[in-house]
């Protein structure tokens, strides 16, 4: 295992971690940032996969703009995910 693949593993690991965090954080603002981070790490991976065009596009559109749009939307709606009460019930609702 050379150092290049070390970096790959690390980036993929961090990307997955930020994805999990983006999904699990209750603060939507943080989640949006987490999502942008996923995009950012993905764009790094794109770069490593010899796709510089895609990397640039992902960084500019996927990370920056899509994150910004999310943040505006959060600003216009609500910032925190409401507490999920686990009410027992019909199977489709849970």
């Amino acid at each position, binding site marked *: 295992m050379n150092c290049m*693949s070390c970096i*790959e*593993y690390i980036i*993929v690991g961090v*990307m*997955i971690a930020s*994805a*999990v965090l*983006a*999904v699990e954080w209750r603060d*939507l603002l943080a*989640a*949006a940032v987490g*999502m942008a981070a*996923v*995009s950012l790490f*993905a764009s790094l*991976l*794109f770069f490593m*996969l*010899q*796709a*510089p*065009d*895609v990397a640039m*596009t*992902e960084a500019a*559109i*996927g990370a920056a*703009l*899509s994150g910004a*749009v*999310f943040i*505006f*939307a*959060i600003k*216009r*709606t*609500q910032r925190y*995910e*409401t507490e*999920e009460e686990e009410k027992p019930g019909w199977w489709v*609702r849970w």
Partner: protein
Amino acid sequence: MISVYYFGAISLILIGLYAVLVKKNVLKMLIGLSIMETGVNLLLVSIGYISGRSAPILSEGIGPNQAVDPIPQALVLTAIVIGVATTAMALSVAIILYGKYGTLNVEEIRRLRG
């Protein structure tokens, strides 16, 4: 053993789908969709990758046999733009929804049913 890129891509897809399946907040579901799209893009690019080759820019003495497949990259460019378009649309719908329903909890957004 599958490659780490494939692993990462599939993980992103699944995590995104997980958010859609479990999280009740609309924005969270949209974040999930967005992550899913990123995963798909990653998958596409990894499929086009060829070990030991460089980017498909044929200047500087890189010949046709030394470059990776350009098509998946072109496709991913399109897919990214489509992804952001969908996200923007979805978010504006979410804004309207919040205005009309006062909530973003999908369990309460169900006037249309049956």
